[in-house]
């Protein structure tokens, strides 16, 4: 506690970081107070002091010297005096922030320009990854084909086989929901049987591949970004490069191949599951038997409907894989950056998949497919 004023300040008790808070206000008043002549700061009653306490004493001395008074310490000895002595007279100044000198025009349009440049960079990186992946692992002495079958199979297991249960469940529910809504609406027109056409065409051409791709973008796209990103953080990517392997070929190519194979197969599974869900619902709500459902489906759906959906699957798989890989390669040094890029990968992959689907819809209608 600052016990006196004027000529002599007496500090007593503990001056440690956890005990100085209550006296801070009073101490700061003391620092600003006016006075004249010689000043002694008596520390003989101080029981303990740490950097925070020592800094306050130091700051007080500096403030008083600034008023033209000579402040001296008394009663400080050994480590206490040493600690106060080594502290600088003024706190090291934080570097001044440079003022933003840009004009309003620049401030408004530079973020937009950055986004455009970033988009261009992403596209360039995606093409780089696609090109490198197609060239394979680029083994230096031409041993083997550069494709590791074990790695491809592992990734197919992780991205394909293990995704089957969730895809089956999701598609069953989607098929059932579409069929139920369709049946209720078409009932007004007495055209309940056409719910089979609705479900069949919608599921096989659009919904089946789209929802499967979105699910895989969330499930495997995030995994690819996280894996490649953490390898980037631990310099594993650099190690591969130094060993003479192309990291894109070694790490990303097997994942792209696995995705491109797995997504069409998962789409087939999803289609079967959704049609089964629809059949169950139409039988329950509208009394359409499985036989009727199948024969109506046979008439409504031709192979081109199935093909129209399936053709999209490998393209969507490639887009998901490349977007995830590009984001993975952009991961920087911190855990936060990994999280940001995984999020970005999933968002961008889902957006790209939907945009691609829209592009295909326009394309099909233009060629009358």
């Amino acid at each position, binding site marked *: 506690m600052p016990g006196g004023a004027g000529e002599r300040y007496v500090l007593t008790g503990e001056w440690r970081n*956890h005990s100085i*808070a209550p006296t801070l206000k009073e101490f700061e008043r003391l620092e600003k107070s006016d006075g004249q002549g010689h000043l002694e700061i008596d520390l003989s009653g101080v029981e303990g002091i740490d950097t925070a306490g020592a800094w306050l004493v130091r700051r007080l001395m500096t403030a008083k010297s600034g008023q033209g008074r000579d402040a001296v310490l008394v009663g400080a000895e050994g480590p206490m005096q040493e600690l106060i002595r080594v*502290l600088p007279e003024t*706190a090291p100044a*934080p570097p001044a922030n440079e003022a933003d000198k840009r004009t309003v025009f620049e401030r408004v349009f530079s973020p937009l320009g950055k986004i455009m440049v970033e988009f261009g960079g992403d596209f360039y990186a995606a093409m780089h990854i696609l090109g490198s992946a197609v060239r394979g692992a680029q083994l230096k002495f031409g041993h083997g084909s550069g494709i590791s079958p074990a790695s491809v199979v592992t990734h197919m297991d992780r991205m394909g086989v293990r995704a089957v249960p969730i895809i089956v469940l999701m598609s069953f529910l989607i098929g059932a929901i579409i069929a139920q809504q369709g049946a209720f609406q078409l009932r007004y027109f007495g055209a309940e049987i056409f719910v089979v056409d609705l479900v069949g065409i919608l599921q096989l051409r659009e919904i089946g591949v789209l929802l499967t791709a979105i699910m895989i973008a969330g499930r495997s796209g995030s995994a690819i970004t996280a894996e490649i990103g953490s390898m980037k953080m631990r310099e594993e990517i650099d190690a591969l490069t130094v060993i003479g392997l192309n990291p894109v070929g070694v790490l990303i190519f097997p994942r792209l191949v696995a995705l491109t194979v797995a997504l069409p197969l998962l789409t087939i599974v999803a289609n079967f599951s959704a049609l089964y869900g629809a059949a169950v619902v139409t039988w329950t709500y509208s009394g359409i038997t499985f036989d009727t459902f199948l024969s109506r489906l046979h008439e409504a759906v031709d192979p081109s409907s199935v093909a129209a959906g399936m053709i999209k699957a490998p393209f969507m798989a490639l887009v998901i894989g490349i977007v995830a890989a590009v984001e993975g390669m952009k991961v920087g040094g911190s855990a936060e950056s990994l999280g940001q890029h995984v999020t970005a990968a999933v968002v961008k992959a889902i957006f790209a998949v939907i945009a691609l689907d829209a592009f295909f819809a326009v394309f099909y209608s233009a060629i009358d497919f």
Partner: protein
Amino acid sequence: MNEPQQAGTRPNKDRQVVLSVKDLTVGFGNKLVLDNLNLEIYRGEILGFVGASGTGKSVLMRTVLRLLPQRSGTIEILGTDYDKADEAERIALDTRLGVLFQHGALFSALTVKENIQLPMREYLDLPQSLMDEIAYLKLEMVGLPPDAADKYPSELSGGMIKRAALARALALDPDLVFLDEPTSGLDPIGAADFDALIAKLRDTLGLTVYMVTHDLDSLFSVCDRIAVLGQKRVLVEGTLEDMFAFDDAWVQSYFRGKRARTVVTDENQPAAK
């Protein structure tokens, strides 16, 4: 031949024990890593801890810091047995320990200044302006320029990360500081600076330092006492002379090996204590 020489070379009775480990046993599965280990550290000393890789130096440090459970034995830090302490005592104890992890373990999402202020923010009730001043003081104490304060850990070099992590370890002015291989990955000049820094901080802040190290220069230049871990316990502890006198193949080759000889010859007086 391998009887433990429990110090005895120095009159330690009158010194305050900061960390006392008694009959500590730690194991994983059916494998014992530490078996009835005893260790004492006294106030104001720098204890260097050595041992072959895989002998459990890290396990001991992590057990003392309560990151690993012990099978049996007691650990008293600053006179408090953590296992018997209540919540308030444990928190009070936590604020009196500082740890410098081997790779810094700075929080990558926070700047250096925020890293240093994190413990202050949690435990102290100080205004932001004073915390800023203290953070810049800590940076200066560990020899970092003020403009490092607003950098993120990923923007720092290896040596700067160690210094920034030390500044965080010192944020609350702890009594006992644990350093896990503080000079590993630093160049010899940087390592010597770091050793000098630790000695200086010990003198000014009255720290007690528990230092796991493989750096012979550190052992010879700043450590007051050395403890060797081997055969699941403290094989020998004492001054450098005790190490030279101790009859064990590993200890002999460690302190009298080719690398050690170079250091000893360079310094002329290996144990000028």
